[in-house]
């Protein structure tokens, strides 16, 4: 190792880069950390001025996100048996009792079903289409690819009204299937284009070798091409999930009851009377978790160059 290596950056350059990256990370993380922190504050701490950086944490926000509560008269409260659990205890401090679970759980589950469902469908269809576009002779291939891309040339919400009317006619409004299909339709162009790029990179010889080795075209596809495309599939899946998970406008427009996802629901937590910011922050924090977990699980695929060195170019 020479001190003047051409390929190795100098230690000063590395330090500078490290500091810049850390700085960037801190700046982008602050709002996120603030939300997480707010979720553990009391309502009065949350709106205090100057803002409190150090405070006594409480899970009040999380209790409020998951429950509906009723205020009781002091006499009625006094007549109650002692609180059965920590949630009840917190609620009693405000002269209230837990009346039942809130809708947050089912909305969250809706988000999971619709987000992961549409991601799975986008990836499934997108991979097959991308493989076909990459490997087969298809008449008007370039035009078809352009057509698929052109669905992303305007913001999806621009077609909100036709979709709203269509969905009402088809009975797809406020259904899981309707939302899955809608998010898949939006994501599929991204999936096809991204995945086609990844599959184009995989040398055809691998499949040809598998064909020669006695496998069918489909076996060659899922035993040889899919493992090679894992990196591309993982990153495409993350993009698709993030879109479907965060989508707000269509969710507001097309869902209200059974299929409502978390994004339109979380703002409604703010409630009547006092503004319950900790509950909103708690909901937002919980909402972040699945995408984070999904990304962390697929992280190794994002970073790994699995075809490294297997084919000489």
């Amino acid at each position, binding site marked *: 190792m020479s001190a003047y290596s051409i390929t190795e950056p100098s230690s000063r350059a590395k330090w500078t880069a490290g500091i810049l990256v850390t700085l960037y990370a801190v700046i982008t993380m602050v709002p996120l950390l603030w939300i997480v922190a707010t979720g553990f504050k009391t309502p009065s701490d949350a709106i205090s001025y100057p803002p409190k950086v150090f405070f006594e944490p409480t899970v009040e926000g999380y209790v409020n996100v998951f429950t509906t509560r009723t205020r009781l008269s002091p006499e009625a409260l006094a007549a109650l048996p002692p609180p059965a659990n920590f949630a009840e205890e917190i609620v009693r401090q405000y002269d209230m009792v837990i009346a039942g679970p809130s809708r947050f759980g089912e909305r969250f589950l809706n988000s999971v079903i619709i987000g992961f469902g549409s991601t799975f469908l986008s990836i499934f269809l997108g991979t097959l289409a991308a493989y076909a576009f990459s490997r087969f002779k298809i008449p008007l291939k370039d035009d078809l690819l352009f057509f698929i891309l052109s669905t992303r040339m305007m913001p999806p919400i621009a077609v909100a009204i036709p979709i709203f009317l269509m969905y009402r006619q088809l009975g797809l409004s406020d259904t899981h299937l309707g939302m899955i299909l809608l998010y898949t339709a939006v994501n599929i162009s991204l999936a096809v284009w991204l995945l086609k790029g990844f599959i184009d990179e995989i*040398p055809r*010889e*691998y499949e*040809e*070798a*598998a*064909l*020669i*080795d*006695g*496998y*069918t*075209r489909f*076996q060659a596809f899922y035993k*040889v091409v899919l*493992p*090679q495309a894992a990196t591309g599939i993982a990153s495409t899946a993350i993009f698709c999930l993030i879109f479907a998970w965060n989508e707000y406008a269509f969710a507001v427009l097309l869902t209200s009851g059974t299929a409502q996802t978390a994004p339109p629901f979380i703002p409604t937590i703010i409630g009547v009377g006092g503004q319950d910011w900790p509950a909103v922050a708690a909901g937002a924090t919980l909402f972040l978790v699945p995408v984070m977990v999904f990304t962390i699980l697929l992280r190794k695929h994002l970073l790994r160059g*699995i*075809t*490294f*060195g*297997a*084919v*000489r*170019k």
Partner: protein
Amino acid sequence: MAEIIIKNLRKEFGSFTAVQSSSFRIEDGEFFMLLGPSGCGKTTTLRMIAGLELPTSGQIWIDGEEVGQKPASQRDIAFVFQMFALYPHMNVRKNIAYPLVSQGLSRARVREKVEEVARLLRIEHILDRPVGGLSGGDRQRVALGRAIVRSPKAFMMDEPLGALDAEFREIMAEELRALHDRMGATTVYVTHDQLEAMQMGDKIVVMNHGVVEQFGTPQDIYDKPATMFVAEFIGSPAMNFLRFRGSVEAGATSVRMHHHVFEVPELREPFDGDIAFGVRPEHVRFSDNGAFRCRVDATEYLGTTQIVTLNSDHGQLKARISSDQPVRVDETVGLEFDPKTITLFDTGTGRALRSDLNEGVLSHG
């Protein structure tokens, strides 16, 4: 093990014809070379035999069965790719085992066969390594292992040495040939390297622009070229062509080139027009009484022999002579040609005129 017969094989890609009506026959157990410059259709022909491309028309017979339109997986042949195409997500053992897994063999049997092949190729020590870090030679051996493990009817090899360094190429060429001789399997081998083809092949097909120019043993192809293309493509330096206008009769044993008369193998067909007189550099002899006079342009010393570039009235030619023979640039020398080795060509079509020399070798006429 199988005999492969190619009949009128043709492949078109859109308006481009990659292979035009090829026909040849590969005997059981033969090491068969498909030779030609890049873009000549040799790889396409190989891929059609393997089933990776389907022919536009024509037939492919493998072991007495017509397989032209069958998928690759049903032809029971192995293919060694130029870039090896080892499955990068599997280790060496799994790569070699992969063709056996598709046949549904028991685990124990697969293990046994893989290890047998690994011993044969001397790669037992790398069986459990990932393929990513292997050297070129080892990758080549793994690719061969994957090909032979299944004991297929025939091997297809697409320039398998092309991706190797020069030093490895020599070793692997010998290993390949030795492996073939031990297994006795029919092998079809694509290369653009005429030396490789001559050195390893039992038979050679020379292709150009999608057309089979000649098909025969290396000796026949070298000594009795069927076309001017073959004569030029094989041999280094290439065959000399002295071009002239003239006519010959069937049965003639000499040809007149302006004032010179040269002996040639007895001709079997008459011809009148532009002729190329083809003689290999090693069949050019210096002779003081030779009536054909040339000026020496340059000499290249190659150890035991030297290549002398000469300038004649009928164009430039090269001679390969012993290094002991003193030659000076700019001197004028007389030349003689070994009469038994001469081939006359029709310059218009490039084909060789039939004679005693090439009787029975030429496919056309």
